[in-house]
């Protein structure tokens, strides 16, 4: 689970907001607020990717371990943006394989099977060898989701991941995302403008101003 204890985000030594929250496994915490309030900055703070002029105080804990000083790539915090951000120089399968932890699978075949299993879960079986540029927006969003899941994170951060999808796709991708998170019992933080997102997430909602 994720706990934020007295987390304060600063911009140039000026505090933007303070926040304390617990997100249990399988739950989604939704953070809402106007543009520029620092929603995305909060996610970056949790992911450990805060850039100047922002800074953070307070404790960020994952599974009761303070991660404030842990290197970004060791935090096991997955992050997703409104763009799928698939690596264009890799195929769909390579994107997912790239995300999988080293030595998680004994051989190539097992890895290949695991990738297919993930793809099947989002109804994309058989596209592992496709170039990512050939995918539709909805397909890319789904690949992006399973790529994050493939890295087996302890926490998932969602930075307006549905905002670029059209309405029809949005609810579908949304339910996919939340059900996958739930199925894996992962705590998640969702940043969004959209009240429907918050409703679909079903967890606590925090509004920052």
């Amino acid at each position: 689970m994720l706990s934020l204890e007295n987390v304060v985000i600063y911009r140039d030594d000026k505090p933007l907001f303070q926040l304390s929250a617990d997100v249990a496994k399988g739950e989604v915490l939704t953070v809402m607020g106007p543009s520029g309030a620092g929603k995305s900055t909060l996610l970056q703070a949790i992911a450990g990717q805060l850039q100047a002029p922002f800074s953070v105080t307070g404790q960020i804990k994952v599974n009761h371990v303070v991660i404030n000083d842990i290197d970004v790539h060791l935090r096991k915090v997955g992050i997703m943006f409104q763009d799928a951000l698939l690596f264009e120089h890799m195929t769909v399968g390579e994107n997912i394989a790239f995300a999988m932890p080293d030595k998680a699978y004994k051989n190539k075949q097992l890895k290949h099977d695991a990738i297919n299993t993930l793809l099947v879960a989002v109804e994309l079986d058989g596209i592992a060898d496709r170039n990512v540029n050939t995918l539709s927006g909805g397909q890319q969003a789904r690949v992006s989701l399973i790529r994050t899941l493939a890295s087996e994170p302890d926490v998932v951060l969602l930075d307006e991941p549905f905002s670029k999808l059209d309405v029809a796709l949005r609810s579908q991708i949304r339910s996919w995302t939340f059900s996958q998170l739930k199925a894996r019992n992962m705590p998640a933080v969702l940043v969004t403008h959209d009240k429907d997102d918050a409703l679909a997430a079903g967890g606590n909602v925090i509004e920052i101003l």
Partner: protein
Amino acid sequence: MFTHITLVARWCLLLLLCIPVLAGLVGVIFPALGYFPAIGANAFSTQVFATLFGLPDIWQMMWLSLFTGVGSTLLAVIAAFCILATFYQSSLLGKIQGVLSPFLVFPHAAAAISLLFVVSPSGIFAAITTRLNAYFSHAFTSPFVNEISEMALPAANDGTLLYDGLGLSILIALSLKELPFILLMTLSVMSQPLVKKKLTGYVKVGTALGYSPTASFFKLVLPTTFSQIKLPLLAVLVFATSNVEIPLILGPNNPSTLAVAIMHWFNHIDLSMRLLASSAAVVQVAVSAVAVLLFLGTERLVTYIGKRSLSGGNRYFADGALRASGFVIMAFYIILICAVVYTVVVYSFAKQWHFPLLLPEGLTLLHWNTAISALTTPFINTLLLGVLVSTTSLILVLFTLESEQLQPARAVASNAFSVSLFLPLLVPGVAFLYGLVWFQQLIFQNAVWFHTYVAHMVYVVPYVFLSMAVAYRKFDNRYAMVAQSLGKTPWQVFYHVKLPSLFSAIMVAWALGLAISFSQYLPTLLASGGTIPTVTTEAVASVSGSSTRLTAVYVIIQAVMPLIGFMIAWYMPVIATRKRSRQMLVSGTHSNRSANPVQ
């Protein structure tokens, strides 16, 4: 670990740029202040400067440098923007890039000589005019028949612009040479994925609001991109004010520009002229600084006026005139390039070639054989040095850029870094290189390759950095964030995500480094003491010779060599993509669509 390495790389880069230039500057400032023990000058004083400013032509020389430098840069900037405004939404843009790219890697000396070939009174344009005149006035032979029934002489003392006292020939030649650089630099900024997306959006909005394409370009696109091309523009400007080759070959000598005089004084047989040369080099730095200030002032002024016209809401921006000049400039380039290519290629194979005939009397391989038989070692040296310099500078630059993102420096350090990066571009090479040789003699006097390597790095690194930084800083960092959040170490992110994504930009930077290393004359000659002959040192030596034909051969070789690098740069990403898509076709049974080429 990787973070530490990148930090070390950053320091290496900083030292590599600063030490030679600062050492070289010390080697210039001391003599400028009258201290040069080698010739028995031991006392510091400002007397040398007094002597310099006592010269009758000194102000005229400074003015020429300033006028040609600033004038050519402004002209080139305006012309480049005209072309961009006319063509940036057009399908011709790719072709224009193709036409102008070779100019980018064409060494200045070679460019000046080619211009001299075609615009002189015996050049191809004069020959065509003479033939046409003769045809229309006497109707004696068709201009296409390769014989003349009566002797026609090239015009004597006619009004060609060559060697004019105002420096207009220098100004035009410099802007011709700079325009492609500015254009391509701007395009490379505009074609960065994020910028491109933004600009396309802007233009759509502009069009929707009823702004004409040129108006959208000048009011929306240009203001957004200008800040990113400003530094390269300043480098161009400084280079233009202190360039030696073009004023030397095309400019006046009564008097010449300051840079030419500096070189003249440095090479003067009377070694005490070194003092004067050094003080002039210091003045040259000041002239370049004034040029930069003037340029920045102009920018302010244009921004101020532009801001007012922005809210004025005029939907047009001299559309007709701009489009016309865009087309005219492009037509001019194409004609010029055709003329140069024709003249140079034909000269390189020509036997006797009488004015005003358009063809020589016969063809021979003599000139090529002469050049090639002398070029094996220089060619290998050039390649070895170029690849070594370009590759290491690329690695250093990439690590440095990465360290900027991994461990952002504080503002002061970052400013110091930018300044040191531009140091080699801000200090006229003709000045600090002589001082550098003096220092290199003090330490490791036998490490000739090392010294030459360092002298090349000083010039190559800034350009590789400039070329790479735009792409690197504009790289959508969220990719890196995603990769890191997937549990990848900084090295893995760098190696597996950034390098492949930036592959084509990296290859272009590498090719640029190669081209710049190829074109170095003074650094190679001075640092190696002439013991490492390169194609360029041989070519410049041949230019000081008397054979037009041999010079033509060298011009071609000089033009083609850097192109090889760019060919590799352009085709490698394409090949990589093809290979990838082929692999996919082989293994991917479900892939029924062929992959789109990666942008």
